[in-house]
């Protein structure tokens, strides 16, 4: 008997098998054919293992970068990148992540069903990353077992419905309809950009009336933009550390600029492999989640990833890129002046989230809104990670961290709650928030329906 229990526990302790089981349950519940069930389950497990392989590739290029940075500038420099930090965190927090993600998605459906936050968050990779971050922070705070999964999942479920809700006002402005929600964990930055647009953009014409060079859109290709940006970062650091340091410590005599180029693209290769893994993991889980939520909460709106807004304002996308990146560089200089940890411009967030911030800013404040809003977003994603680092425990010493604004926002709030409250108090607060939202839904007067 004991050995069977041991066996089951061992299975649940292996995150890859655990996600496989989650996919299996989803596939069986959807009444898929037997071969599809086998295929989907194996693919999901495969995805998790691929992710681990990508982490090894990515780490091999990130470690020398950290040492070079310290040697050259005598401070720690960090590149925020979700894929990198998640792939490292999973080794230790994989089980917590998988369980929090699975039950968090259930919690999202429950929140959407019983409160007025009627959004189903469908950007699966962000759900996964957020589950990972919550898992890390709560574990660092001492949570474990059932309580860890319960508090983590409920928190995740609330977050998944909350952020689309605060973005929705702007989303209606951008798309001109009330059909789709916005689901991407950079929402604090986008809402800030939208608000700034509202404040400064009076009378500013839309970005879509500008003529911009079209040939910069190849930068939207994430592998290319990551390679190019990392090359710049690697070159600057290799030159600052000098040929001698690089070739004796890392490159085994290879020319330091050749080494820098290869390492930069290796970083992109690592992210690429990790993304393949994430893609495999999500392929079976997201459709199941979508299917259940459509059945259980038919009046909820799907909340979708950034590029949903790009076609509405392609120029704002480009303006947002550049403006956010400028914000990142100026933020970096400011951090240097303050002698704080240096946050190097994270590639994916400046390109994708900066672009989105541009679209939000443009929707409320035209050209001026897009430029200033995305710039503010760039500053925000440079400063938030600084305050996020301490709550990530030992992961805070890795050369990378979570990048987008909501990870920073949620992490800082949750991390500080963990510092000043006991575990049970945190659990009570999270449950109370949920119950208040449910109570509000049933007790407060329903608004008169004017739309639809």
């Amino acid at each position, binding site marked *: 008997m004991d050995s069977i229990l041991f066996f089951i526990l061992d299975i649940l302790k292996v995150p890859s098998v655990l996600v496989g089981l989650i996919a299996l349950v989803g596939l069986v519940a959807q009444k898929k054919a037997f071969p599809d069930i086998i295929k989907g389950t194996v693919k999901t497990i495969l995805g998790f293992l691929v992710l681990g392989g990508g982490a090894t590739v990515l780490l091999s290029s990130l470690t020398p970068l950290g040492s070079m940075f310290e040697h050259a500038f005598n401070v720690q420099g960090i590149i925020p990148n979700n894929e990198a930090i998640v792939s490292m965190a999973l080794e230790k927090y994989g089980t917590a992540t998988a369980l929090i993600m699975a039950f968090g998605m259930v919690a999202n459906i429950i929140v959407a069903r019983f409160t007025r936050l009627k959004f189903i968050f469908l950007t699966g990779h962000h759900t996964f990353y957020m589950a990972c971050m919550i898992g890390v922070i709560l574990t660092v705070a001492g949570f474990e077992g059932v309580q860890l999964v319960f508090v983590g999942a409920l928190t995740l479920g609330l977050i998944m419905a909350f952020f689309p809700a605060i973005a929705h006002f702007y989303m209606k402005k951008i798309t001109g309809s009330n059909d789709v929600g916005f689901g991407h964990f950079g929402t604090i930055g986008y809402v800030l950009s939208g608000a700034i647009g509202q404040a400064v953009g009076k009378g500013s014409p839309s970005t879509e009336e500008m003529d911009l060079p079209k040939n910069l*859109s*190849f930068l939207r290709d*994430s592998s290319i933009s990551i390679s190019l940006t990392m090359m710049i970062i690697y070159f600057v650091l290799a030159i600052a550390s000098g040929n001698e340091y690089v070739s004796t410590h890392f490159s085994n005599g290879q020319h330091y600029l050749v080494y820098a180029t290869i390492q930069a693209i290796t970083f992109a290769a690592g992210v690429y492999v990790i993304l393949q893994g994430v*893609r495999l993991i*999500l392929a079976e889980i997201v459709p199941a989640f979508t299917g259940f939520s459509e059945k259980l909460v038919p009046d909820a709106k799907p909340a*979708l990833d950034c590029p949903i807004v*790009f*076609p509405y304002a392609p120029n704002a996308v480009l303006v947002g890129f550049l403006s956010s990146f400028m914000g990142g560089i100026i933020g970096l200089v400011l951090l240097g002046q303050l002698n704080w940890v240096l946050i190097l411009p994270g590639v*994916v967030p400046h390109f994708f989230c900066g672009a989105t911030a541009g679209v939000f800013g443009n929707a409320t404040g035209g050209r001026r809104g897009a430029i200033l809003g995305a710039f503010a977003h760039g500053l925000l994603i440079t400063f938030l990670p600084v305050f996020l680092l301490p709550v990530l425990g030992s992961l805070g010493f890795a050369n990378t961290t979570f990048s987008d604004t909501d990870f920073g926002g949620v992490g800082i709030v949750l991390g500080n709650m963990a510092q000043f409250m006991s575990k049970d108090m945190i659990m009570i607060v999270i449950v109370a928030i949920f119950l208040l939202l449910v109570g509000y839904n049933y007790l407060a007067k329903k608004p008169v329906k004017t739309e639809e």
Partner: protein
Amino acid sequence: MKIMAVCGHGLGSSFMMEMNIKKALKTLGKEAEVSHQDLASVTANEADLFVMGADIANSSGLPADKVVVVKNIVSVKEFEEKLAEYFNQ
């Protein structure tokens, strides 16, 4: 036949497009294998038809007759119209 949904990162949006294309195919009564990918990995021989948003269509480098460009990447209706147009060619 094989249809590929493409977006910049190859994660969220193209996945959503894939699910919507599958819905549209069902309505149209057509069979196809649908999957999704990022802009960097995609090559012309991989599928018979590529579907992507208007914002990235110019930088894909794919032959124009194999590409369907959509404005609203979550509109099942738009997928239905565009795919029907393609099948009727």
